[in-house]
């Protein structure tokens, strides 16, 4: 009985293998291979593989793509064991920067044997994106795709029904928030649950406010660990977020419990209920995927966005973004070819057309964006007067994790802000020394 069952399972496995083989394409041989480690899984993995396909077809180089959510841990383990992949892409550049500082990355712009054609690269990328990839003046990371944060999503039908206007200034936003609240509905939907990474969605609010309220200089010295968390500029950003949350989070649908318990992916759902439970939801552009799939909402008619208004007009047009950084850990000709390929607008366009990504490349054609909303998001990025990279992703991992946890503590009890910030200061003092 048992032998029979196991036997039929094996037969099933072989059938499945045969089916896969039958569907598989021709093998690429002889030109070598390159191993890439990154975080993208699911449909993102499909998109990245679509990007790699023309490269493999043209060069004959086989790309072995490996995906894991624990990319930091896996990369560190392999590196220490002396077996790193040739190319890695990490969600947070801080880890790559640290590795670069330890001499574990390949310099991309060395004078004698540069990986990239530097004149083309310099002409196609804005200085800000180039500088982000530099450590001590040497280029170690390139950015292939970008995203913009601080987009406030709303349901235009709900706004029209109540005759609410899209706010043009921070003051307008506060007025709108109070109007909505006096109408008996909570203005905001906020959700920060994300398993092991819980809190990050709320940390976006704080960093956007720091940039827009205190300006890029404070923002930079803050993520660099030179400005303390208890500094008035940072503290006041948390307090400004507190005015959004309201006393006891009363401006947010479901209050504290809902914020902590709801997964960020479901954060915007109550906007689409009838009657709406909230009117606004601040999240990066990837969230539209959930609106479409989970809430059966239609872009343009059921949801639109406005960029979070400037808190301080002195820093008008300041926006926070993020990007996908690539680095080389082993110098092979195949890895060089792939890094070069990933900086081209042609490679970037493949994923951009599939949705969910923007291109940081200046020569990128706006027509490549799949829909109007994405085009508008891209315009926010290109039109930004001050564009700063996600502060959390630039902080050492310990600092970032403490920052996320602080969000949970702040939402739990806003009155504990001082002790929360003091604790962050303690961690800051240690995290940057490694």
């Amino acid at each position, binding site marked *: *009985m*048992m032998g029979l*069952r*196991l036997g039929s*399972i*094996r037969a*099933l*496995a*072989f*059938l*499945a*293998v*045969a*089916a*896969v083989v039958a569907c598989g394409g021709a093998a690429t041989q002889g030109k070598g291979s390159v*191993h890439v480690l990154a*975080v*993208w*899984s*699911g*449909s*993102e*993995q*499909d998109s990245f593989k679509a990007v790699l396909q023309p490269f493999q077809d043209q060069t004959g180089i086989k790309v*072995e*793509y*490996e*995906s*894991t*959510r*624990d990319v930091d841990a*896996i990369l560190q*383990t*392999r590196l*220490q*064991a*002396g*077996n790193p992949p040739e190319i890695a892409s990490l*969600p947070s550049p801080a880890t790559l920067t640290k590795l670069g500082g330890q001499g574990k990355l390949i310099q991309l712009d060395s004078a004698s044997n540069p990986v990239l054609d530097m004149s083309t690269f310099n002409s196609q990328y804005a200085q800000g994106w180039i500088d982000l990839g530099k450590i001590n003046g040497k280029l170690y990371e390139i950015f292939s795709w970008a995203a913009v944060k601080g987009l406030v999503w709303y349901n235009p039908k709900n706004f029209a029904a109540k005759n609410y206007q899209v706010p043009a200034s921070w003051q307008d936003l506060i007025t709108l928030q109070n109007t909505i609240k006096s109408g008996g509905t909570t203005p905001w939907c906020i959700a920060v649950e*994300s*398993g092991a990474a819980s809190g990050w969605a709320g940390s976006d609010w704080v960093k956007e406010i720091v940039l827009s309220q205190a300006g890029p200089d404070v923002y930079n010295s803050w993520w660099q660990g030179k400005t303390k968390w208890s500094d008035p500029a940072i503290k006041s950003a948390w307090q400004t977020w507190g005015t959004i949350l309201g006393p006891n989070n009363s401006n947010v649908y479901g209050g504290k419990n809902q914020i902590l318990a709801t*997964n*960020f*992916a*479901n954060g915007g*759902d109550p906007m689409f209920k009838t009657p709406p439970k909230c009117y606004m939801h601040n999240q990066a552009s*990837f969230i539209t*995927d*959930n609106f479409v*799939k*989970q*809430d*059966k909402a239609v872009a343009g008619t059921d949801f639109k966005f406005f960029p979070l208004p400037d808190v301080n007009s002195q820093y008008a047009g300041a926006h926070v973004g993020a990007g996908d950084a690539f680095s080389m850990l082993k110098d092979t000709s195949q890895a060089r070819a792939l890094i070069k390929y990933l900086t081209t607008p042609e490679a970037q366009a493949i994923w951009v057309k599939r949705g969910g990504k923007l291109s940081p490349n200046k020569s990128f054609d706006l027509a490549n964006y799949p829909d109007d909303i994405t085009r508008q998001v891209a315009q926010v990025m290109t039109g930004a007067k001050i564009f700063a990279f996600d502060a959390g992703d630039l902080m050492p991992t310990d600092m970032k994790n403490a920052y996320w946890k602080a969000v949970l503590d702040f939402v739990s009890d806003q009155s504990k802000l001082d002790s929360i910030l003091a604790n962050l200061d303690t961690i800051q003092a240690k995290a940057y020394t490694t």
Partner: protein
Amino acid sequence: MTIASERVATPAAERPFTPEWLGQVFSKGLLHVAVIGITLVWIVPTLGLLVSSFRPLDQFSSSGWWTALSPPFKFTLDNYTGVLDASNLGQSFFNSFMITIPATVIPVTIAAFAAYAFSWMKFWGRDMFFLALVGLLAVPLQATFVPILTTFVNLGLTPENVGFVGLWLVHTGYGLPFAIYLLANFFRALPTDLFESAEIDGAGTLTVFFRIVLPLSVPAIASLIIFQFLWIWNDYLVALVYVGGTPEVAPLTVTLANLVGSKGQDYQLLTAAAFFSMIVPLIVFFSLQRYFVRGILAGSVKG
């Protein structure tokens, strides 16, 4: 599932099996109520997952799973087709077998040898070694990755050179303390007179081991095989660290985890994936469960 629930639904009073000893403490009905009641409570989370795996995403996140059990019925196979669409499902199924079968056979066999020695042979440092083994159960595996992987890389035991062999060895090393501990406990409980009579018959060590110890310990070995198989089948991190997640070598767990996007997109596929990956362990459990039979030892009891 269906068979089980049909049987559960059969009224207890109609069962032909009515040993009178039950009447003393539990009335027969009470026993059945207790067994079925606890089981029902126990399967609620699994049942919720099963129902959810047939629900469309928009339903799934907005209402409880039990609401799906009343009209209007809105069920879908989307989650299952989503899992079956995973790009290299067949290959990773194959890989999981390639990893799990040897990584179960090797440690269970080696553990049986060692457990026999620990329970029925005398040698220097026996108790010390045995206790050390139990203590090693507590080693957090994460602390062992770097030294072992470094040695593997230096010795050339990488997946490019030796395929899954490195991973089998790792799983053997990690699995042995528990396997030896469990088997030694069962081997030790075997009646001493069995061994004495075997010695009088002039049977050698091998004969005693293969003809007496192994057959009498079948329930223990069966449960050990179940657990070792299960742990390796469900392992994600160890496989990822030692052989990696490229399609050629990725086991089922890695492939299924990659169905979900890095920001949790399509997480509902995990519901169907959980059932998909449960199939093989449950078959193993079902097939080995028939070895849990009472009374093998009847007649050769020690006091």
